[in-house]
């Protein structure tokens, strides 16, 4: 897919803006395809220099790590579109993981009930975030940050701070009798054959499906259009009769629901409710969504860019791991890439906008 994208510019750019000088075309080209070229370059670099990178095993790892952050990042993208921000997604995901585990292991509920409960929780948290921002006028960053703290604490209360696993000892001394439904575990663990045997983990299919849904919603429907209008000029959108509050709340609800799906997939993959996992989810997802600004010169939050951003972060981390880079350098490099991507987006596209 990315290779297709880098091939097209030769036929697409010339002659479109012919009065522009050559350097303008070069900048246009860099803004549009620079990031995808970087992604391809990264793959080639790691394939050459990291032993075993160009293989199905490593592809599976990348896909697995990309899937959950990607789903969360798509949620953040929706809130970015309306000019907001959702810092609570990481903790919504881990809360959803704990809730799924608690429902099945401790309360001995079937998988179906656990899934419904998690989705409902995501929607309700999104609704509360939205209402805090829209009705009580708490700034978005602060409202969702508060929600994040609240959930980080809340998810540990039922088990008194312990992780949830099958057969665990409960706070009252008894032993948990419930089990994860095998079907539920398959959601996170099953691998589909695609060209190679067992190549595609199930969560990747979720990512692709959700990615397409979010893309269609944001790009092709009038609801997506109005959300972009709100993000660009909220007052103008409201004066043209758009129900700004409704769309903002909806964006946070989408974000909450997607984060809860991510959390369930995490629970299914791990087979437990692990209080220690998911710490990087928020930062990785935010990075993916912001890197997405730079893809195809969009300079705005968009579903395709976010998915590419998630893929980029996944490839980078996997490659570094395989080159034996110490774990503590990974966050540094992730941050560096993010900063470069942001410079790319804002300084270059500002130059483009100022150029005419």
């Amino acid at each position: 897919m990315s290779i297709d994208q880098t091939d097209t510019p030769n036929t697409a750019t010339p002659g479109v803006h012919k009065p522009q000088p050559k350097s303008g075309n070069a900048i246009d080209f860099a803004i549009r395809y620079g990031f995808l070229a970087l992604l391809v370059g990264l793959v080639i670099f790691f394939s050459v220099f990291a032993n075993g990178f160009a293989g199905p095993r490593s592809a599976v790892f990348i896909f697995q790590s990309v899937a959950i952050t990607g789903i969360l990042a798509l949620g953040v993208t929706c809130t970015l579109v309306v000019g907001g921000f959702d810092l609570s997604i990481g903790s919504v995901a881990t809360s959803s993981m704990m809730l799924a585990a608690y429902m099945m292991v401790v309360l001995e509920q079937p998988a179906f009930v656990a899934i419904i409960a998690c989705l409902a929780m995501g929607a309700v948290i999104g609704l509360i975030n939205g209402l805090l921002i829209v009705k009580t006028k708490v700034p978005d960053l602060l409202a969702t940050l508060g929600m994040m703290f609240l959930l980080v604490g809340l998810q540990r209360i039922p088990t008194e701070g312990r992780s949830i696993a099958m057969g665990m000892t409960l706070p009252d001394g008894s032993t948990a009798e419930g089990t994860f439904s095998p079907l539920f575990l398959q959601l996170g663990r099953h691998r589909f054959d695609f060209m190679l045997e067992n190549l595609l983990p199930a969560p990747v299919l979720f990512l692709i499906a959700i990615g397409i849904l979010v893309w269609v919603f944001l790009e092709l429907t009038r609801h997506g259009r109005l959300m972009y209008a709100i993000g660009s000029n909220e007052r103008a959108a409201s004066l043209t009769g758009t129900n700004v509050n409704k769309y903002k709340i909806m964006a946070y609800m989408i974000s909450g629901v997607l984060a809860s799906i991510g959390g369930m997939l995490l629970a299914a993959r791990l087979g437990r409710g692990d209080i220690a996992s998911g710490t990087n989810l928020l930062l990785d997802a935010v990075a993916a969504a912001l890197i997405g600004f730079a893809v195809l010169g969009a300079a705005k939050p968009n579903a395709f860019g976010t998915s590419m951003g998630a893929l980029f972060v996944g490839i980078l981390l996997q490659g570094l791991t395989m080159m034996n880079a110490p774990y503590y350098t990974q966050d540094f490099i992730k941050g560096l890439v993010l900063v470069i991507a942001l410079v790319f987006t804002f300084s270059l596209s500002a130059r483009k906008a100022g150029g005419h």
Partner: protein
Amino acid sequence: MNGTLCDLRGVDKSFGDNRVLKQLNLSLPAGSVTVLMGANGAGKSTLVKILSGVHALDAGSISLLGKDFRPSSPSEAIRAGVVTVHQNINDGVIPDLDVASNLLIDRLAEPGYGFFLKRKQNYAVAERIASQMGLSLNVRQSVAELGVADRQLIAIARAMAHDPQLLILDEPTSSLSASEAERLFLLIERLSAKGVAVLYISHRMSDIRRIADRIVSMRDGEISGVFEGDALDYEGAVNAMLGHRMTDADITIGAPGKNVLVINDLRLLPESKPFDFDLAENEIVAVTGLLGSGKSAFAQSLFGLGRPASGQIRIDGQDFAPTNPQAAIKGGVFMSSKDRANNAVVADFDITRNITLPFLSRYSSLSFVKRSDERRTANEMIEALSIVCQGESDSIGTLSGGNQQKVMLARWLAEECRLLLLDEPFQGVDIRARRDIGRKIRETAKNRATLVFVSELDEALEVADRIIVMAEHTVTAEFRNENVDLNEILIAVTGAVPTDIGNAARTAHA
């Protein structure tokens, strides 16, 4: 008293293809107040910006006190003694700081001030400046707690603190009450007696009569008339500014159709006088008045942005009391808002998307937007309004102000409505675009009622069948746009003499 303080010779300035100032000659004598009059787009603000160091001139020369004056930045102009109070009040004050800091902010920025704030000294200096101005303010109070008038006076007071040689005031009284304005006039007189040259930009006839020593009229980037002497020719100045006598605007008032908007006993504020107002199909009425006259409150109550205190609004015989813009639009009332950058333009969108924004559902089936449909509408509107662009997918930011305003108008003309409200539709628009927009408003008015809210009278005269004047949140006068006397309207607007022309100024019977 009579020496020339500032002299402009052959000043030229263009923005792109638009030649804003053409070989402009102007001299400003020391110790006198020169009032500058000019319609929108005449080049007044460009002239002010060149004098205050915001823009550089393209050709020509300016001399100040006999020396060449060519400021490269506002601070250089201020140091040379040219001090400007701009029209936009919020450019002049920093709401989060206290009054003293606002009065002294330029001194704080000077290199010699030192690192630490000298609080006590600052308060003392600030109090001295305030008392010179006749400002009775607590200098330790935060500016955010003050009203618009006090903010305006602070901006002016700060300008005074610079010991200006040339003081430029751009519509300084637009947010002042009569007594506050009088305080300002006394101050201007005191400065002018000390030999300061004052350039005073205003449309308020009462201000001009009160303060002007001479009047300079500007039109299309040139000085079109200079009026001096003991008896100033105010009417001549206005005619020179407009380039024609008032009735020259080719308005042929059509026959009004059936009534659309019927207003009975509407009180915008609980304490304001109620008014009645009718508006028919094929009728265009301009609403004018000073800042704070209730013009905006009237527009807002018709578009669901505010509720009137009492009274009845009917549209086509139906009660109409929208609680938000959505409800107003559903009821057939559209409004193109003033201040398009903040209230109307969606900067990230192209022309098409900006036009179709309010009525996206018409272009969608099952929520999916039909791109070809909206593009067709956009192209039709581009054609109809002669919007200058390369295509319907141009980003809105690439258009000139006038063309952006046309796009905003296109947004609301793309669908039929019962009542169209246009709030300052000519704001920041050059004369040609203004004519285009005015013509289009008139051409399309047949099947709807139209209300145009403008603060500039010449705009009202160019577009309206009738002109109503508002003051103190009620309608105080009404004119039919046929052989009207500009002075009479100006008197009604500024409230200098109470007028009872037309049938609008009814007495309250509540």
